[in-house]
């Protein structure tokens, strides 16, 4: 019953970061799920960096979640039960995410701040091909 070869073959995606305006989160379909790529503003970055780690359920510094602070790349699937969070919503903005199914709130670094989700939004494996292009998967 495990994933067949054709499913595994579609496991990588190339994204042009120039297409994402500052302050916007864009969804891409990757492995059948949404991938959120957020071009963060300076304010979002500063707020995310200022969060004390001991206040987090799944403590991770902002630097560990973003290879470049301007771009957040996370799998857009709530770690509670798999719904798709809504961008720019919830109580932990600017640039936060909110899951409408069971009320989990994430901040602009995709870290869980409130609600039933146990962990932060997952950061997938990705590499920068150049300053404006990443490959995910």
């Amino acid at each position, binding site marked *: *019953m*495990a*994933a*067949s070869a054709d*499913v595994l073959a579609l*496991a990588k995606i190339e994204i042009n970061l120039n297409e994402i305006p500052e302050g916007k989160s864009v*969804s891409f*379909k990757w*492995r*059948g*799920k*949404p991938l959120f790529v957020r071009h963060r503003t300076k304010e979002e970055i500063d707020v995310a960096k200022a969060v004390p780690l001991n206040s987090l359920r799944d403590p991770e510094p902002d630097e560990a979640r973003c290879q470049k602070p301007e771009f957040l790349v996370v799998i*857009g*699937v709530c*770690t*509670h*039960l*798999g*719904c*798709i969070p809504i961008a720019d919503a919830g109580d932990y903005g600017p640039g936060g995410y909110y*899951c*409408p*199914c*069971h*009320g989990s709130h994430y901040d602009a670094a995709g870290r869980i701040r409130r*609600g*039933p*989700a*146990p962990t932060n939004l997952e950061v997938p494996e990705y590499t920068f091909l150049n300053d404006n292009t990443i490959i995910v998967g």
Partner: protein
Amino acid sequence: MKMNLRKTHPLIKIFNNSLIDLPTPSSISSLWNFGSLLGLCLTLQILTGIFLAMHYCPNIELAFNSVAHICRNVNYGWLIRTLHANGASFFFICLYIHIGRGLYYSSYNLKETWMIGVTIFFLVMATAFLGYVLPWGQMSFWGATVITNLVSAIPYLGTSIVQWIWGGFAVDNATLTRFFAFHFLLPFIITAFVIIHLLFLHQTGSNNPLGTMKNIDKIPFHPYFTYKDILGMLIMLFLLTFLTLYSPYFLGDPDNFTPANPLVTPAHIKPEWYFLFAYAILRSIPNKLGGVIALVLSIAILYIMPFTNKKKFNSTQFYPINKLLFWSMFTTILLLTWIGARPVEDPYIFIGQLLTVIYFMYYIINPMIHKMWDNLIF
């Protein structure tokens, strides 16, 4: 001397002993009709399901349109489809009343019958969930996503198991195909379990409102209860037909008329009405694993009933405080159903948590009150 064929033929005598000569308590009320009604529901679902399967396409590109095709083009497809969808609701109405009657009149004391019955309940829930995914609407997709993700709460292995169930990295074509296969298969497994359920029931005979377990005051099943059951079936069929012809989508969700979109979760996702109470319990626990455990326990707790409720009288009607508790429990389930359909915000979150505590407290307090009342009387 010539023996009656129905009593001697190896095959016919099985039916004779189950439907004709079966000694049955004369006092059983209409609440005992729901077993046969469940048999009718199962038969109806299997029959309508087979006709739907002849036209349905279990592929994510075709599923949604094939359901529309069934409703628009296939001869009486609209009727078969809505009978199947509403039949599921009637199945659960009968199941809940059947279980409620079992709880009130302590039918759980027929241990093997009760245990098989709770297992059937789980199987029916699984079948209904799998079936709801097949139309591949928004609620189908997100229902499948949320429910399969419950398994991801298992420590260490959860994610791997979920991906194994999906056959990929998300709910996708492989998932739909296997869900269809299992939705087709499970009703036949349920039928086998029903036969075992009846086999055990007929070893002891039915429970009755007075709770007397002796073979006194029994009458043959036919004609008394065959006619009574047929009357019950006619009433249920009338109600099902009325709902199906008058307002076929009354119990459905408008979001399921939108094709599945893996990139957008509907703002208010919720399961079908018959799962809402369990869904409310899941949402009430602000912890993933805790929520999943509470959800499973909300049903699995029925397994412990025969072991925790030891009492002198069988029926709750002889225990006034337990009677009150029973109806409080009934109200709690109705309110949980209401909460399950509300958005996740205050005051619904707190009310849901309170009702969840009350729900589970019933199973703890109920046997204690039985014991106290027994001590007072005897």
